[in-house]
């Protein structure tokens, strides 16, 4: 077998391998932990490195317009046997890239950040399980399978949020997270039962092709949107998010950002694919629901962020506000999709919303890593107690400035490019939406200027006299994300054309997704 054949074989089986590799790695990690801590750390990084390579291999093919399906079970669809189908389009691949990058950076960061902790075999096992869960949610084409991966992600996330069991608030945050996740998951399961009862199917493409938009379908739609939006941290169901994000170790928070975005992906998959054909039937636009939720999320998130005095809790509320931008962009796309005169606006809004998913993961992720670095160096997260750290932590300060500019949508960072797309497209739908979005960005800038002043500027405080820069592995992790932010900011056209636009088209042209499973399907153009 030559190299080309091997790559073809890997590409063919990559949808399965992308989930199988971290899952298998998770079960092997406790065994390798018994050998040596360094060997375990290297093993986990290599496992996620291999997973990332497979994701990039699959994505490189999917972004050219192909859709990959992978059937677990009988290949003959006429046979009445249990089978699970993975279906990977450009949107799935886009989300998988985000998840795998965040997980890989998080384990590199963890090398130094978590080295003083015990129970790291469980920590790395849970991280790999969580990664497998997120990737499964993004790659599966089966709704029940989506629920299973959502549960895997939720359980491992809750355990990781409560990883610092010596801190009561961490355990409390983990408890809240699992309660909220379970409530959300139960309603998702109920919605799946409604589909199964009506259409005798669990496959997303099959449900989409059979969708009648009955009364039960409307109930299922409400429950799915509400439950997944809660898991994504949409206001007013966001309250678990600042608790979990601020009390988890920073490396875990980075992956949690990916997990919430996987739930947001679920909202988009439901609205665009499963209910893609029903948009015409609905007299009240689902898009407007997303737009209104987005605006409320943006405003409340940023308002709560401005009054926070805990570094991590402040970033968590900013992350809530950022979710609003994604909902606004995608919601606008959904609203104008049916208007032939506004097709270009709809596509621009979709591109903005989707591009912002990746930008938010990078920007907010970097800020959480900086917060973790400050905690590592000072054992402090209160903005009332920090100060003058720019003198001792020069690299961390530079990374914070990059994150600050990016998350506030300041040029020439990546956040500006995606927010510009959102501002311009929402302006054409309704100028007030655009004004609110710009106002929220200005407030976000104010929020992080406050952090910059209170934590990094000011006189050198005697209690932080001996504070040193964080270890190299943490700097490498922060540097990697900062570099991606700068590259995305400087060359947005390349990123949008090569990965964002195919993802937006994959959501809009849901018929291609359905036809991959049901070739006779004629809708969805």
């Amino acid at each position: 077998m030559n190299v080309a054949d091997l790559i073809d074989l890997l590409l063919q089986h990559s949808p399965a391998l992308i989930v199988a590799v971290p899952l298998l790695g998770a079960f092997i990690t406790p065994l390798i932990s018994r050998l040596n801590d360094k060997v375990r750390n290297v093993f986990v990084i290599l496992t996620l490195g291999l997973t990332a390579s497979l994701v990039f291999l699959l994505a490189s093919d999917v972004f050219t317009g192909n859709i990959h399906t992978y059937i677990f079970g009988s290949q003959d669809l006429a046979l009445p046997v249990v089978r699970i189908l993975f279906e990977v389009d450009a949107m799935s691949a886009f989300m998988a890239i985000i998840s795998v990058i965040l997980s890989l950076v998080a384990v590199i960061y963890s090398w130094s950040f978590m080295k003083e902790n015990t129970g790291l075999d469980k920590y790395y096992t849970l991280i790999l399980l969580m990664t497998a869960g997120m990737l499964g949610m993004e790659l599966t084409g089966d709704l029940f399978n989506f629920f299973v991966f959502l549960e895997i992600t939720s359980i491992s996330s809750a355990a990781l949020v409560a990883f610092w069991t010596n801190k009561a608030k961490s355990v409390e945050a983990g408890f809240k997270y699992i309660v909220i996740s379970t409530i959300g998951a139960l309603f998702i399961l109920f919605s799946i039962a409604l589909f199964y009862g009506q259409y005798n199917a669990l496959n997303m493409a099959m449900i989409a092709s059979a969708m009648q938009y009955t009364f039960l379908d409307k109930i299922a739609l409400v429950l799915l949107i509400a439950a997944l939006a809660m898991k994504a941290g949409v206001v007013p169901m966001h309250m678990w998010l600042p608790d979990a994000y601020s009390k988890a170790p920073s490396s875990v928070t980075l992956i949690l950002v990916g997990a919430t975005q996987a739930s947001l992906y679920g909202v988009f998959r439901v609205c665009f694919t499963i209910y893609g054909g029903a948009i015409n039937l609905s007299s009240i636009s689902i898009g407007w629901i997303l737009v209104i939720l987005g605006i409320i999320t943006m405003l409340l998130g940023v308002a709560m962020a401005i009054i926070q005095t805990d570094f991590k809790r402040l970033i968590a509320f900013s992350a809530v506000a950022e979710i609003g931008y994604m909902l606004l962009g995608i919601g606008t796309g959904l609203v104008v999709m049916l208007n032939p005169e506004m097709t270009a606006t709809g596509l621009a809004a979709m591109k903005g919303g989707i591009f912002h998913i990746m930008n938010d993961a990078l920007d907010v992720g970097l800020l959480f890593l900086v917060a973790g670095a400050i905690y590592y160096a000072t054992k402090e997260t209160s903005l009332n107690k920090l100060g003058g750290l720019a003198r001792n932590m020069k690299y961390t300060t530079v990374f914070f400035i990059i994150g600050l500019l990016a998350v506030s949508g300041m040029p020439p960072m990546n956040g500006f490019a995606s927010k510009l797309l959102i501002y311009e497209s929402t302006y054409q739908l309704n100028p007030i939406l655009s004004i609110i979005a710009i106002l929220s960005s200005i407030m976000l800038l104010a929020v992080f200027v406050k952090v910059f002043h209170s934590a990094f500027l000011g006189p050198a405080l005697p209690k932080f006299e001996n504070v040193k820069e964080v270890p190299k592995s943490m700097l490498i992790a922060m540097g990697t994300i900062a570099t991606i932010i700068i590259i995305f900011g400087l060359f947005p056209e390349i990123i949008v054309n090569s990965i964002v636009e195919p993802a937006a088209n994959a959501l809009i042209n849901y018929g291609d997704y359905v036809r991959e499973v049901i070739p006779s399907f004629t809708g969805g153009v």
Partner: protein
Amino acid sequence: MFTLEPLLETFQTGSGFWSPIIWIVAIIVAFLVAVILRGFGKKEYKEKTGQTQAFLSGNPEYEKEQMHIKGSNLYWGFTESLEWVFDALKKMHTGNVSDYALWFVIVVAILFIVLITGENLMGAI
């Protein structure tokens, strides 16, 4: 073969455009102008002399920790004038997981009313 052309492409937003490269060039030019203007300034400044000490209208200098404006002091005027808004928001965030679940129920109820009842009303009209 690698070419520079794609890297220099202008970002088309549908109704406008954005070029980070031109923006950076403009910032560099502005920075150079600032440096040149600064060069015309006086050069008598001496480090580690009385010129570098803080002058607080003749008042004694406080301890360094007291001099630093802390996180909760920033934007005091803004948060004070909008206290009623922030108080309402704080009350909303009880920290009680039962309330978190209640908000979920409220959102489900609103979505039901909007999507199901609203559609029926629209249909009747």
